[in-house]
């Protein structure tokens, strides 16, 4: 397991975590998972828990090296390819909203790790994250797809259609 690499990623993202904060620990879990899905391997194994994909070993490491994580102390440097991926992540998930990261990570687990079909993936995400609104789920799923999915022509058309529904709904909402 490479916690140094994790810290390098957090540093590049600009996250200054407070380990006593539930929210920051959750964000670290999801950031590391999504970056691993993208190919930045730090060696932390993830399994499905009530929180979605989660690595108990990562939590243990984070607590054990609390100071280094909080102060972002690392001698690891990301290579150009990894830096580019982190930059992409930063742009897509700016603000590091836990709800978006949670939905995106859970979607990615079912879609890209379990390779479930589209309908089953959505059913599972909606079930596990039923406390989030339809909009939060739709945005999280869309971000995960944007980050991890290489769309073909059909997929692009489908995504455009999907985005249009939400766009229309929000315009309607704004008009009252």
């Amino acid at each position, binding site marked *: 397991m490479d916690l140094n690499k994790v810290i390098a990623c957090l540093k590049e993202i600009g996250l200054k975590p407070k380990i006593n904060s*539930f*929210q920051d*620990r*959750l964000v670290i*879990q999801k950031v590391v998972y999504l970056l691993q899905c993208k190919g930045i391997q730090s060696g932390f194994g993830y399994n499905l*828990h*009530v*929180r979605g994909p*989660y690595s*108990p070993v990562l*939590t*243990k490491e984070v*607590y054990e090296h609390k100071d280094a994580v909080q102060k972002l102390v690392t001698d690891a440097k990301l290579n150009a390819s990894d830096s580019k991926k982190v930059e992409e992540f930063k742009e897509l998930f700016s603000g590091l*909203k*836990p*709800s978006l990261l949670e939905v995106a990570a859970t979607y990615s687990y079912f879609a890209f790790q379990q390779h479930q079909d589209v309908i089953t993936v959505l059913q599972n995400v909606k*079930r*596990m*994250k*039923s*406390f989030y609104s339809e909009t939060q789920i739709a945005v999280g799923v869309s971000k995960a797809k944007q980050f991890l999915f290489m769309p073909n022509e059909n997929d692009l058309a489908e995504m455009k259609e999907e985005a249009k529904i939400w766009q229309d709904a929000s315009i309607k909402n704004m008009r009252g």
Partner: protein
Amino acid sequence: MDSDFLSLMKESEILNSDVFSLIRLLLLSSINSLGEDGVTYRELKAGLDVSDGALFTNLKFLEKTGYITCEEIILEGKKLQSYKITHEGSLAWEQIRIWLKKFVECGGRNNGSK
């Protein structure tokens, strides 16, 4: 086989039988698996697909037994209830987990399967 069974029965004496209901086992397992991080009420409700009544009652029971603790956390500006396993809870879950594994294995052999 008989000695296995007898030792299994003997070992069961140290287990807290009050925890032996599906929902309590699921709760202990789920809360234990997230260790120091704790699990929010809403995650348990969604993940385990249980009613508020059943969830609340059983969480209260585990809290009263000293197996879990409850604290308030803030997530995206919202106050949420989060549950963490205690040292006693973790030990109890480990004893149950090991015993259940032996119980299933012993049951399989008793049924004549290899």
